[in-house]
């Protein structure tokens, strides 16, 4: 009996299988057309956040040399230059992953979104952790300007683009994966509802979640009325 409830309580850490395909959704930030009736703030937050995560993941992959810099193009987002991959399959994977993360964020069930960079032996060397928390009361009155949120997000993006200064170089041949730490029993529903067919969540390997002798490097914390998020990097002490 005891083990039963303990397992339920134990928080699931999930991972998307790596797949490829293409399309960019940059610039679909069309808030101005929404009217008050349409506004579901959970959705708005999820939209903003997923858009941001997409930009951030691309940038992390570029900054951390996971892929050759040749596949990246310079774009402008949040009024700052960012790098975005042109590889269709990679883009599609990132997009699909975030598409599946979005429902979790809407319901405030995602606690952390983690970009794990792994070496050839699939041992994690770096984990970029986006820790998300939403204020318990999300209502029209607690919301302030989204442009303000955008400034905060821009600050995080800027921090990512210079984070190589505080991190050691990665060994060659790295890959990456995206993990989601969910709150409580969100997994039960997730297995039922597959947002994209044949793109299921799987429980992450212990090996990918835990990194030995890791050091923690906080990059940026943002606090706004609709969202509180902090980004930190866990870096393996000996990367070779």
């Amino acid at each position, binding site marked *: *009996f*005891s*083990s039963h*409830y*303990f397992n*339920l*309580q*134990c*928080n*699931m*850490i999930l991972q998307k299988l790596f797949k490829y395909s293409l399309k960019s959704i940059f610039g679909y930030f069309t*808030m*101005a057309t*929404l*009217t*008050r009736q349409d506004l579901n703030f959970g959705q708005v937050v999820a939209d903003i956040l997923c858009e941001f995560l997409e930009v951030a993941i691309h940038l992390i992959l570029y900054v951390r040399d996971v892929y050759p810099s040749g596949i990246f193009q310079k774009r402008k987002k949040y*009024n*700052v230059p960012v790098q975005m991959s042109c590889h269709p399959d990679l883009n599609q994977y990132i997009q699909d992953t975030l598409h599946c993360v979005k429902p979790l964020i809407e319901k*405030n069930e995602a*606690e*952390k979104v983690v970009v794990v960079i792994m070496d050839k032996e699939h041992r994690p060397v770096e984990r970029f952790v986006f*820790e998300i*928390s939403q*204020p*318990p*009361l999300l209502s029209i*009155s*607690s*919301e*302030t*300007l*989204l*442009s*303000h949120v955008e*400034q*905060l997000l*821009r*600050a995080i993006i800027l921090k990512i683009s210079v984070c190589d200064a*505080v991190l050691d170089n990665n060994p060659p041949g790295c890959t990456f994966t995206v993990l989601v*730490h969910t*709150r*409580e*029993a969100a997994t039960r529903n997730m297995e039922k509802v597959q947002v994209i067919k044949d793109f299921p969540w799987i429980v992450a390997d212990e090996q990918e*979640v835990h990194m030995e002798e*890791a*050091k*923690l*490097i*906080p*990059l*940026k*914390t943002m*606090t*706004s*009325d609709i969202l*509180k998020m*902090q980004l*930190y990097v*866990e*870096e393996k002490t000996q990367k070779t």
Partner: protein
Amino acid sequence: MSRDGWRKKASEDDGWGGRGGYMAAKISKLEEQFQKDAPREKQKDGTSSCIFSGVAIYVNGYTDPSADELRRLMMLHGGQFHLYYTRSKTTHIIATNLPNSKIQELKGEKVVRPEWITDSIKAGCQLSYVQYQLYAKQKSLNFTSICARGKQDLSSTNDPFKPNPSHPQSDSIKNGSCSIIEEDAERPRVNGIHDGDDDDACALLPRGSQDTSLTNGYVHPVNGALKPQDSFAEHSPHVVDIGSHQSHLPQTESRDREEPSCSSAGSKSNFHQRSLISTASPAKQPGLHSMQKDLHPKPTSNPGTSAAPQKGNLHDQTRVRLNGSYHMTPNSSNLADSSHQPGRSGKGAEAGVISEFFSHSRLHHISTWRNEFSEYVNALQSRRRAAGGAVFSGKEKLKKLKANCSSGILSLWFMFVRQSCILHVDMDCFFVSVGIRHRPDLIGKPVAVTSNRGPGRVAQRPGSNPQLEFQYYQRKQKQYRKVDLDLAALSMAEIASCSYEARQAGVRNGMFFGRAKQLCPDLQSVPYDFQAYKEVALSMYETLASYTHNIEALSCDEALVDATNLLVELGVTPDDLARAIREDIKEKTGCSASVGMGSNILLARMATRKAKPNGQYFLRSEEVDDFIRDQPVSSLPGVGRSMSSKLTSLRVSTCGDLQQLSISRLQREFGPRTGQMLFRFCRGLYDRPVRSEKERKSVSAEMNYNIRFTQVEEAETFLTNLSMEVQKRLEGAGLRGRRITLKVMVRKPGAPVEPAKYGGHGICDNFARSVSLAQPTDSGQLIAAEAIKLFHAMKLDVKDMRGVGLQVQQLEGSHADPSGQGPSRGRSIKDLLLAKQPAHSPKKDPLAPQGWSSVIRTGFFKSKNVQCPSSSSTDVPETLSKFNPRPVPTLAGAYEFSDIRTLLREWVTTISEPMEEDILQVVKFCTELVEDKDLEKLYLVIKYMKRLMQQSSESVWSMAFDFILDNVQVVVQQTYGSTLKIT
């Protein structure tokens, strides 16, 4: 889920008492459902019992196991589960964390941790709920019983040879947590940390968090000495020593409380570590204690306070000054009388009281005059500029005089050397001499200006305890050394000013009239005459202005004149000029003035001391060294009571003594700036020029008379009114400010509720908080909104508030138009929303304070104008805190990084040996930052401290940093599974 849970409950709160038929029907339906499901659940699970028969639980908030799971367990074991709380039917409330308000609400109910259920099931019988109570303060338990129970608990619930390997961790946690709870009440004493700690900032914190967080600091080193994780494999519950619980439990408990926030993957590893702590700690404890001793060599020298001694002194200083200067004028005695009626509450909150207070407050008058005179001087100067030269009647007169009798060589010498000369003109006991200028019968008699005109005795009011207050002041101020017990019945009206005759009898300014009358029975009292003061002061300034316009107004009766050019032009000696000015003033105002002269402002002011009364003194530069050597240090500007007492402890009483100290010594004792200042001052060096156009640094309004609120709303209304007063002043000065500071005087714990002085503030602690705005403002509404936010963040008991002040700093002229740059992007949602539905009812949101609508506008106003990305982080509106159950972590009231940095810098640079309380405060703050998930700030704070403390010459600081870092790393390790990278 936990969050959803809270939301639901929050909306339900109001309906607890009486819901209509619908709710009743719903509840009974739910009950039916529960009964129906129960057998099915039992069948499915196979195990069932009826240990909980008669128990009906209601789950409040996040629990572990979850509410669903608890519901299932209750089904299995014969209990009831209520989705809605009913006082009559629900027997136990299950919760792991409750806000203070809920605890109040649930007083008398059994609030129990969920472990009670799981442990009971494991034990196979219903255990006593007492030891699982969420808050042990519900019922007091003595320590011996705790030990006994703790042991029994261990043996009954833990099987050391449990076959399933995944379990020991959860078991031991429960052990830990359940025994903590009952020890909660005892713990502070057990640890010996909290003895007599009912002081200052800590008193403001909610009880619970204060306990845990403070003790946290002591506990972490235990964890810091942890064995490597693999030792956990051998862990068995028997290793846990009950006795050691005392030391490590607070830690565990604080983790428990925090649980809802880390209800995630991380919590599993938390559990892991927690249990680890409980096994490893006993062995390491001695080491910890010795380490603490090393760090804090004088742990008991400062009994029972968490405030640094300087801070305390600072308080006293301000308090005394305020006490002396705020005063009810005779005109306002009506007000005092009318508010004397019992039951009339929140006097300060009454509309109009503020403006009335300010129209009668002496200090207010004087302070506004000073500005008025500054502006008068400014106006004169600009008029002269416009007219292209002005006629200085006084100057002309002096010139003629000079022509008649040519003065000696000295004036020529002066012309030649062109040494700067400052005149400090000060009226002799201004209020008295103005008060008696039409009453020749009082000349030469001891006279005091005060509001009291009676015999100096009043009846004692109930609720006040003048004796205690006098003892307090006596301790603080040596001048009340000879207090006798009869004082209780004496008038508490302060003496604003007294004549030299009265001073000879020992009467001092600021003394209570009753006391003064005892010292000098012939003392005559003269009422205030504000109109006359103003007239006299104005004519004094007119007189000065007839010589030169290089005047700096210091107050209504005090001015600085830069006479350097004037003397050169006229070719007269400073003494001639001073004599002429004094004669002029005497003639025009009927009051005497003293003039001190020197080569800089400091020397001129010191010379005035020697010149008084009714005289003049020119401090020649060659005499300066001899002169200043004998001056007491207290005559230096900026040397107040606290600093002179500190100097006395350094065996410094005169400036000559002070000159013996090296600048590095002074800077070490008083901080870099103050140290340098003292070093220069005691040598008569002072380079501030006479500033006729004085830049205002702040605009403020403060009131600490008659502040008695009973409700939060009253305080809010009061703040709004005060903000309007500030607005008035800002507008008057044509200024806008960017930074708003709220200062509050709060009755010191233990001080009598009703102070000896009627309506006075009594013995108080002072607190201040400030916020920076994105844009300078002079709008009372905006200021009020921010002030109310600050006020709520301070979490004060409004009943104990005795004084409130609002200050606006970082001023700019209001003419500069800040709205030059509009938003670069299109309109935001907020614009659209506001355009569509402009009027929100302020009452709509129960959480919002009254000034809610303006709060929204603040946010809007701010964000609209913020464009620079680098500044964005500082402009975050603070509204989040309203929704966040956890307050923003603060370090001694500061929460912005820049403030914290200043605070830390002051701390490290001014103090040679860190105090243990301060270190614990910092550790606590860092722990809160981790819990608040603001690693970035934590990182910045740590890095800043590292730089500061490791640079410090004292090795104690390096040790202090290591101590802090160790503790923080443990917390980070527990929360995030890895430690911070500190390079």
